[in-house]
């Protein structure tokens, strides 16, 4: 029953956005209240849908909740309709997204109050000047994420996707402008936020363009963007028949699948378009949690989930679409983990861990581990939101992001510290937290497929490589997470002033942490290898018309894998302890890993990719465009020059020419006519005498012209009649 109200889920936060913008924008408390009430209502509704979906069980996969009543875009004899589509994974998302969002909303009510010491030395807590606007934006953001989850149509999905892009722009750049009386941010922050926002939007825009291209090509070849059609094998086969091949030997499905994957690369910050996400940490921390860990980047993964049948179809019929996804994912997982090692900003470490974890999910989806990839999406959302909010609490309390100015904070902020530990261990994949179960499942699938093939199949080198990359990444994850823990919460305080200033967060901030930590601890049991309830719900039905996923029983391989991955995580953490925990870092001491030398320099500079094609944003708020952007800039100036001087120049040239022509006539009058007169006079032998008499303004010149003209016409006639 509740399913028919699915579209109200995104509508409620959207209404909150509208109400805040139009009505309550001048009242901070009321705005926050409106936002939270709306998300609570949306949460209840989506839990309703989720529960209804759970009651359907695996049956839901074949008969998802679906309705497309809104005629949106008619063209010719066709109409694209919008509506809702809730299949098992969608239902699971409907459980995750509002939950996490609600926690973030509550957290934000406190986070967006800034402590500020006035000129008399009295501390004040005052709301951010744009407090209401913040809630408007995050409401819109949540609305769009929910819309994306319930979309029945790829175009609808795309719209939500793009509006989220806007929200991320607005929220990353939330502090990118400053009134004259706003003290909570400084000029450097304004500069960094400005650069980061534009970088995020444009980088993701590149992916969006690819996504849109893929989507349009899908619309053209498939004839529809409705998920119903996309999951219909008969309709998919049409794709091979329609348009001519894009390139010789390449079929459309793989092109389309990879173009759509382009959207994910940008949105989920995969290599090489990951560059925006670390800088996006300039937004307020709840935003980082909301956009860059729990939901928005998850949208990229969710896109791949939605397009999974397409990818598989492409892989089967026309090219290695899945393998490319898997490889990009695994590579990013490893690549981002290496950079994460060398970051000092508490949020940036988390940012790179996000990139890395998203890579995990993609690798999982790419190797066909659909269920484990999806499950990791859910668990990751919880523990990453937890980590970000925890980091935010730290920043809010001591006023810096730099981990080398922290240390020992667990004594000052026990609740934050403990919950942060829970999240960090989940990220590392420590038993029995949720991260362990989901990550382990991915590694298991890679290992099983790679090293223990089905009977009659040879070992797959590709999958082995993927497995190894993921395993190394898991090790590195444990290493940098451990490093973060030791630098932040353990050890000795390195900045005494900041340490003294530190305090436990208000309840509005720690309560959400506690809730998220609870989920982090227990969510993993939804899908253990022994009792894969999540699999039964999500995987057993497969997609509508497509064959279901297979699940192996718990066997020695699984056990082996559990042990191996626990070992990897623990060894990573142990190394971290060796480097950072055994002998705590003192103030001013360089990072022990700096001994790596050139390698360290590469990692600190993030492989210089910003300098190559990105946009390097410095701590002081200045920025340098990368090589590629400089080239575009040069080309832009060339175009402007061309426009001013060549295109417009031609027009002006025409005007100039006509002016010249006008003068020329004058010249003809004065010179040519003279010349003719001169010639006539020479025939009569009195050149000298008449030379001076023939001047313009002289009627005789005129008459001569007339006579010559008449003779010319007459003679012309003559000549014509002779021919």
């Amino acid at each position, binding site marked *: 029953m509740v399913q028919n109200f699915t579209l109200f889920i995104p509508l409620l936060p959207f209404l909150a956005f509208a109400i805040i913008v139009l009505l309550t924008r001048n009242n901070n408390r009321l705005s926050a209240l409106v936002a939270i009430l709306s998300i609570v209502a949306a949460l209840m509704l989506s839990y309703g849908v989720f529960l209804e979906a759970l009651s359907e069980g695996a049956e839901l996969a074949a008969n998802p909740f679906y309705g497309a009543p809104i005629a949106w875009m008619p063209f010719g004899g066709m109409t694209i309709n919008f509506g809702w589509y809730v299949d098992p994974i969608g239902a699971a998302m409907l459980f995750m997204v509002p939950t996490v969002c609600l926690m973030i909303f509550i957290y934000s009510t406190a986070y967006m109050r800034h402590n500020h010491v006035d000129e008399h030395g009295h501390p004040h807590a005052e709301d951010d000047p744009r407090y209401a606007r913040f809630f408007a934006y995050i409401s819109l953001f949540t609305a769009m994420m929910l819309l994306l989850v319930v979309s029945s149509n790829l175009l609808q999905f795309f719209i939500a996707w793009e509006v989220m892009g806007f929200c991320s722009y607005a929220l990353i750049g939330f502090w990118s402008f400053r009134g004259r009386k706003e003290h909570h941010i400084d000029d450097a922050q304004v500069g960094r936020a400005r650069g980061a926002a534009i970088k995020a939007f444009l980088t993701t825009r590149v992916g969006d363009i690819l996504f849109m291209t893929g989507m349009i090509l899908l619309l053209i070849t498939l004839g529809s963007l409705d998920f119903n059609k996309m999951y219909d094998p008969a309709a998919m086969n049409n794709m091979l028949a329609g348009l001519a091949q894009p390139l010789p030997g390449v079929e459309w499905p793989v092109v389309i699948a990879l173009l759509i994957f382009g959207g994910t690369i940008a949105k989920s910050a995969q290599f090489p378009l990951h560059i925006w996400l670390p800088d996006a940490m300039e937004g307020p921390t709840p935003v980082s949690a909301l956009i860059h860990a729990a939901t928005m980047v998850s949208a990229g993964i969710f896109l791949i989930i939605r397009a999974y049948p397409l990818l598989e179809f492409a892989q089967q019929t026309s090219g290695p679409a899945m393998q490319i996804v898997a490889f990009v994912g695994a590579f990013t997982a490893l690549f981002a983990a290496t950079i994460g090692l060398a970051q000092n900003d508490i949020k940036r470490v988390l940012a790179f861990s996000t990139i890395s974890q998203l890579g995990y999910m993609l690798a999982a989806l790419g190797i066909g581990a659909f269920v484990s990839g999806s499950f990791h999406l859910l668990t990751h959302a919880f523990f990453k939101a937890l980590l970000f909010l925890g980091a935010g609490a730290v920043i809010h309390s001591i006023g810096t992001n730099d981990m080398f100015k922290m240390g020992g904070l667990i004594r000052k902020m026990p609740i934050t510290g403990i919950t942060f530990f829970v999240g960090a261990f989940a990220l590392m994949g420590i038993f029995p937290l949720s991260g362990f179960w989901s990550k382990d499942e991915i590694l298991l699938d890679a290992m099983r497929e790679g090293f223990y093939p089905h009977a009659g199949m040879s070992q797959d080198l590709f999958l082995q490589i993927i497995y190894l990359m993921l395993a190394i990444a898991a090790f590195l994850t444990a290493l940098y997470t451990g490093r973060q823990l030791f630098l932040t919460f353990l050890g000795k305080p390195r900045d005494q002033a900041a340490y003294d200033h530190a305090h436990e967060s208000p309840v509005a901030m720690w309560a959400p942490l506690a809730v998220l930590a609870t989920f982090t601890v227990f969510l993993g049991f939804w899908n253990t290898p022994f009792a894969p309830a999540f699999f039964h719900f999500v995987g057993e039905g497969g997609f509508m018309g497509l064959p279901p996923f297979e699940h192996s029983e718990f066997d020695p391989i699984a056990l082996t894998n559990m042990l191996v991955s626990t070992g990897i995580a623990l060894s990573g953490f142990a190394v971290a302890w060796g480097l950072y925990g055994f002998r705590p870092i003192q103030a001013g001491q360089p990072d022990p890993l700096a001994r790596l030398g050139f390698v360290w320099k590469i990692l600190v500079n993030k492989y210089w990719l910003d300098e190559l094609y990105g946009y390097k944003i410095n701590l002081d708020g200045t920025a340098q465009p990368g090589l590629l952007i400089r080239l575009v800039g040069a080309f832009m100036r060339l175009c402007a020059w061309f426009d001013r001087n060549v295109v417009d120049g031609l027009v002006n040239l025409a005007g100039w020419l*006509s002016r010249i022509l006008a003068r020329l006539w004058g010249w003809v009058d004065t010179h040519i006519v003279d010349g003719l007169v001169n010639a006539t006079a020479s025939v009569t032998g009195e050149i000298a005498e008449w030379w001076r008499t023939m001047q313009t303004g002289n009627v005789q010149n005129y008459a001569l012209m007339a006579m*010559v003209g008449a003779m010319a016409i007459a*003679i012309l*006639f003559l000549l014509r009649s002779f021919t």
Partner: protein
Amino acid sequence: MDVFVLFYLSPELILMGFALLILGLDLLWRERNAQTLGYLALAALVAALGMSIVLGLRVSATDASGLQWGNQVALFCGVCGGTFADLLYWAPRDLADALYVSDNLTNFFRIVGSLTGIIVLMASFDYMRARKYAGEFYALFLLAVAALIMMAASTNLLMIFLTLEFLSIMSYILTGFLREDKRSIEAALKYFLYGAIASAVMLYGMSLFYGATGSLNLGEIGKVITGDTNYEIMALFAFGLMLAGIGFKIALVPFHMWAPDAYEGAPTPVTAFLSVGPKVAGFAVLLRVVLQVIVVYRNDWVTIFATLAILTMTLGNVVALTQTNLKRLLAYSSIAQAGYMLIGMASISFSANPLEGINAVLIYIAAYLFTNLGAFLVVIAIENKTGAVDLSQYSGMIKRAPGLAVLMVYFMLSLAGIPPTAGFLGKFFVFGAAINADLGWLAAIGVINSVISLFYYMRVIRPMFFEVAPEGAAPITYSRWIRAGLVITSVMTLLIMLLPMPLFNLASYGAQIFGVAMR
């Protein structure tokens, strides 16, 4: 010859009679009642206009309305003989040996001519009030109008020569009418010398025609010249020379050089008249000569007219770009306008399509008449009060004389051919005729020229609207006669665009006499 036939000469007779009457009264009254003489002249022109319209209408047995336009009478026949009834219904082209005809084309030009006269006369009332010898001016002016009508009615080389000289001499005198003004008298002398030489050249051409065909009558000559080579050389050569005289009237390149000087020097109402009257009459003669005499050499004259059209338009427009004296600028503009009319001449293709060259020329002439005279009326109104004829003196006219400024915009747009104006309709027909005659390239050059022309027409507008009037500049008032003239010209400029059918019919009836039947 039936005496009643003189009825068919009534417009000209009225004009000339009144001219003599005015001269006589002027002698009697000695400058005292100059304005009355002016009204008398106006009455004469209105009567002539009325008679022209009456002459054109005849009772028709076929037309349901009972009235039909079209009436063709040959006058001063040597041998056409017959009765009055016969005279009414001769077939087109069979002109026998008439010297002078009163046909649809003549009636068209009668209407055009007397309208020109009426409007210019209205403009000159104010102008002449401050000057001497107004009575003489009105008399001479009436004679000039009569001359231009007679020129359009002539179908004989001798008659053409006589009427052309008649018009010329009147024009010389009118141009030099301000005897104390150096410029005026200089303009007259130049005009005179140029005109005399041009008509001598034309006469030489006429004599060759006579020698080649043994006749002076256009119809007769046309019958002789049938396209065999014996006459071809002589006829075309002679026509080339005759163009000097006709082109001089029309101010075609290369016979245009008198025009800017004469226009600039002449009294402005006379300039207005010169820019329309002789040009119109010249086209009437050109039409008759071309279509009755050398019509068989169509290929040849199409080329010549196309070439001349391009030269005329381009030179007129390009040189006008640099002018600052408004009278001189309008002189070059009127040269260019003649170029567009020549496109129509070149596009005569005798097709049954309404977009036909003859039609186009006639419609263009009518449109040009009102537009150009309207523009001159504005110039005269401003000159009367301020003496300004230079563009730099026109700044801020929108404040000083909003009505004049707005009307000037309208007339300039019409000259440039922007709808909804008569000028646009004229250009539409001209270019249409060109495309219809497979001269699309000529039409293309024509439209390019009309774009160029817009530039200087807008240069006229620019100071009026975009610049500030000098301190203390008084508002410009103008008499009710100029106002009436402006009303006539502007309303007609608009009406020709909005309701073009009457004009179209008038023109196509005129074209019928050349055996061109329009749908």
